[in-house]
């Protein structure tokens, strides 16, 4: 049986599934129930200085749905905890005392001056918490007050605050990054330079989920007005995976521990984050959508997959996908594939035909009887037909073996690797060896 125990910058948990800092971790009552349900750890809902902030008294969430109202994306305009600091600290201490084997990380957001950070850290330390997470991510509300993503968008501030914190506490310091920037490697590098033990990402993506077409207010609407919120849930996973991968493979940040966040909904999502280098994953929207019990599926699913693949523990596969992420210019241009339609699986809907004919390379023929066939002399292997086909595995990309002829170009497929850097059409090409 796979060993799911995790040791993330010295913070131990029985499994790598943590609840992200958000409403699920806002109170003692939730967190106790989360631990009872099996979560490996929590990042407590972000604490701030007193007087505590207030939230709007109208709707905080907006959403995007797929079929059967499956929630695909959630948007929120909630701020950090709206309860007094001492109440939170007391509760954190009580829970940690009763659940010593679970990871208890406390998220923090205070004004961007050294005194504020230095003064809050000992209070957290006193609870027995395992670590802190600096919330430089919240993109709404707090950022207008010079906190959250207002700090996270300026690498120099990140480095500065990380350094203050490292100097003021013995606890591991995790810096939570905002995705609302152009190059995630900059803030990650700054966190590392400031001495942070790890980064966690992503926080939410600035967003407006919808506009009410009756009164022209954005949703969620507070008295006819709305402000942008933070987007999370399954819809943001691809953005998060890319950012995690960027940090994992950049020479400047390679090896920096990462807690992966963003759209983790099933064990598979978690395994993907970990394959890209995440030591733990954090979950918010999936828990908010389905409740705490999903952790049972996460734990069982990851263990089942690890057993199937023969991964004894998390280190066995963590980061295994990282070496396979490269720049476009290094992709093998001599790799040639063609779409193949398995006629026995085809249900004749013609979606591949419409997509290819209208928007791609006119490489699918529609024959009498609604039979769809790939024209090898037109197919560029773009994969669109595979993506729009409603039947799994009906269309696949089949690699042409070296020596075969690509009917589109008339060229023999070469066994050699060759990329753009040496391509004749590249004005900056270096002569191939």
């Amino acid at each position, binding site marked *: 049986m796979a060993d799911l125990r995790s040791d993330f910058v010295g913070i131990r948990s029985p499994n790598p599934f943590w609840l992200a800092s958000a409403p699920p971790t806002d109170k003692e009552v939730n967190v106790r129930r989360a631990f009872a349900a099996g979560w490996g750890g929590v990042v407590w809902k972000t604490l701030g200085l007193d007087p505590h902030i207030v939230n709007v008294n109208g709707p905080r969430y907006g959403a995007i749905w797929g*079929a*059967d*109202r499956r929630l695909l994306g959630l948007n929120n305009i909630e701020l950090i905890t709206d309860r007094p600091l001492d109440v939170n600290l007391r509760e954190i201490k009580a829970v940690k005392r009763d659940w010593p084997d679970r990871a208890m990380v406390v998220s923090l957001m205070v004004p961007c001056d050294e005194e504020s950070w230095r003064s809050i850290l000992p209070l957290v330390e006193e609870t027995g918490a395992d670590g802190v997470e600096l919330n430089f991510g919240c993109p709404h509300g707090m950022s207008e007050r010079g906190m959250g993503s207002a700090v996270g968008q300026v690498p120099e501030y990140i480095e500065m605050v990380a350094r203050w914190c490292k100097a003021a506490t013995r606890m591991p310091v995790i810096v939570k990054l905002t995705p609302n920037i152009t190059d995630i490697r900059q803030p990650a590098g700054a966190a590392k330079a400031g001495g942070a033990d790890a980064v966690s990402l992503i926080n939410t993506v600035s967003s407006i989920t919808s506009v009410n077409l009756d009164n022209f207010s954005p949703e969620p609407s507070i008295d006819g007005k709305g402000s942008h919120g933070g987007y999370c849930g399954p819809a943001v996973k691809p953005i998060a995976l890319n950012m995690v991968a960027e940090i994992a493979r950049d020479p400047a940040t390679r090896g920096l521990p990462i807690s992966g966040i963003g759209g983790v909904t099933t064990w598979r999502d978690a395994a993907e984050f970990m394959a890209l280098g995440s030591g733990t994953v954090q979950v918010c929207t999936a828990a908010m959508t389905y409740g705490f019990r999903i952790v049972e599926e996460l734990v069982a699913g990851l263990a089942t997959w690890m057993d199937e693949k023969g991964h004894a523990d998390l280190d066995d596969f963590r980061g295994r996908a990282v070496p396979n992420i490269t720049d476009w210019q290094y992709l093998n241009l001599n790799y040639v594939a063609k779409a193949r339609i398995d006629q026995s699986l085809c*249900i*004749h809907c*013609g979606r591949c035909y419409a997509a290819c004919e209208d928007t791609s390379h006119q490489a699918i023929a529609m024959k009498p009887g*609604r039979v769809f066939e790939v024209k090898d002399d037109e197919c560029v292997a773009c994969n669109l037909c595979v993506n729009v086909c*409603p039947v799994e595995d009906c269309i696949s990309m089949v690699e042409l073996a070296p020596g075969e002829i690509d009917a589109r170009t008339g060229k023999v497929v070469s066994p050699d690797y060759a990329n753009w850097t040496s391509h004749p059409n590249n004005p900056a090409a270096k002569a191939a060896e």
Partner: protein
Amino acid sequence: MAPSPQTPGIVAGRLTEDALRENFADIAPPLTAHEALVAADRCYFCYDAPCTEACPTSIDVPLFIRQIQSGQPEASARTILSQNILGGMCARVCPTETLCEEACVREAAEGKPVEIGRLQRFATDAAMGRAQPFRRAAPTGRRIAVVGAGPAGLACAHRLALLGNEVTLFDARPKPGGLNEFGIAAYKSVDNFAQAEVDWLLDVGGITLRCGERLGETVSLETLRAGHDAVFLGIGLSGVRALGLTPAGARIRPAVEFIAEVRQADDLGGVPVGRRVVVIGGGMTAIDAGVQAKKLGADEVTIAYRRGREKMSASSYEQELAATEGVRILTDSVPVGVKLNGTGSLVEFARPDGETFTLHADEVLTAIGQTLGATPEALALSGGKIAVTGAGRTSLPGVWAGGDCAEGGDDLTVTAVAEGRDAALDIHASFGDAGLSGS
């Protein structure tokens, strides 16, 4: 003592009011808004969609389903109604299992097609409460007589009126609707939907309805031709094939008559039905008669069909419905004689191997086919129906025909609508540009 299913003879009120209400409730209740979204989400928006191809009126199914997905059932209804003005009735009565839903790629893939019929009902229901979504074109000055206010005549009249023509719609019966009103099983069209749909349709304007006018009796084809620019005949099949075995006094009657009685009853508790009912036939009418007899409280209902099950024109869906309702279907059973027996009769059947058997019947309903009623002699016939070429052109210039009375077609509501609509387009086109300036 109140009558029960076991009360001998033919009596009314075999079931309580509650039981009748439950038995005759909507057989396929409308989808809720959420159910409709879930059902609509299953559509793949097929290229050159096979469902549309399979629809006799060529409704753009993937488009109307997409419009439900995007939250506009009224726009969806417009897509449906622009092809099929009786899209509401068709959503209820079409044997979708042999039309669009049979063609749906998800039927092939998982044996579970997109619920096109129910989605169509969801969309058209949204339109029914509202005004006609269509506006008439400028007047052409042309006048057309449409005879028969069944699906064929109604679709023809509506399309002609839309195109700016003036239509007079004649029907022999006191009410319009044809078999929508008198034939379709009661549990497929509840809450007087047929009438509501006709009223909604006529709202388009330009159609004068004249009920109680029978072609060949109160009006002649010659007068109609003389007084109109064109004539369309959608007179359905008003005759019935007889069994030819009926001894005097036996309670044998056409199934369509029984069904019409059920449809027109204000109080189903007042419709008499036999304790033991034998229905002879193997089509939709036989099933409808058998099922409705059972639902009225008949104790034993048997449908006897002369050939094998595979030859029955009732779809497997209909056959299953009969089975679920507790109606027995006997195949390879040819009726060879009827004898009086007390208040009922004994019907004798022969099997292909020569074996014979008898069934007791308080009431025998025959559903062995409808036939064309009296038609003007001048019209050429073919195979017992009015001969037509192209979009319903008869042998007489200026006279078109469509629906059940015309040659070809499937004798379905939806084909009648398609033929009525196409004849209207052909009639309108036959006027040429001259018609547009008025006459």
